């Protein structure tokens, strides 16, 4: 079942990965786990003070979700490089208005293989990757490079 180099084709898609709507509790859990206690990610009064209407998810939480999407496909030990640029902010779902706010907080990870090559005796491939919400707003874009057995 392990993925092989011959299974990968240029232009083929990485399996799509869709999350549950991110809640404030998810943000607090990530803050505690990572040590990133920037109050912008949990304290509404701080967000207001700097002119924002809501708290937002950590960029690295979105990247971490993308990381899980990648490794559930190729495995951690195969990853060689992983880089992203953060493009827009993610507001969590409001539990008192789930229907109207769940789509902005649902993250969808997609990717496409753009290159296959050999380097230092390893079979490598490069994949473009994006995270967007269920409304189509892009949260990050980037790439990863991985090696795979023949």
């Amino acid at each position: 079942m392990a993925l092989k180099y011959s299974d990968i084709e240029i232009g083929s898609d990485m399996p799509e990965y869709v999350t549950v709507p991110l809640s404030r509790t998810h943000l607090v859990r990530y803050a505690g786990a990572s040590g990133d206690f920037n109050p912008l990610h949990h304290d509404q009064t701080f967000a207001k003070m700097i002119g924002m209407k809501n708290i937002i998810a950590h960029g690295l939480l979105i990247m971490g979700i993308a990381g899980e999407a990648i490794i559930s496909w190729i495995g951690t030990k195969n990853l060689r490089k992983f880089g992203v640029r953060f493009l827009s902010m993610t507001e969590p779902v409001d539990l008192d208005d789930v229907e109207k706010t769940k789509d902005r907080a649902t993250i969808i990870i997609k990717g496409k293989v753009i290159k296959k090559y050999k380097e230092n005796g390893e079979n490598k491939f490069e994949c473009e990757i994006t995270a967007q919400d269920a409304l189509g707003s892009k949260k990050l874009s980037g790439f990863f490079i991985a090696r795979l057995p023949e």
Partner: protein
Amino acid sequence: MADKSKMGMEFPVYTFAVEKDKIVEFAMAVSLKETREQINPIYYDEEAARRDDYDGIPVPPTFPTCSFFWTGGGLMGTIEALGINLGRLLHREEEYEYFGMIYAGDVITRTMKVIDMFTKGKGKRAIDVTVLETQLINQKGELVIKYRTTLMEI
């Protein structure tokens, strides 16, 4: 505004241990799960990890950035050292290069330096950019991960 005299500055070297339960906590956070049993077993079950060809319990791909928050005064200590205003801080880019694996029980030494500082745009629209490069070296002296963090002050 970011203090450009800090270009090239090297932060103090720190050492931290990679605790098994911190890996579980982090994996739960990025998997958006409520319990350990719902995450990938390689993050809590050493036998499952070994069956998958790991030499121990590995860390998730973005776990290395925790070193930024766990060492050197954390977020506040680091941005104060760079003269960055928290209320204007945005994370622009993050890029990891993996040379080896970090496993539960490893003792990691972190070095971090400022590799670029510049201003984009002019006047009110000027954005200060600071690029940090971090190297994580394990207890055997092997460079396992290098990563680059791009911060913006808008």
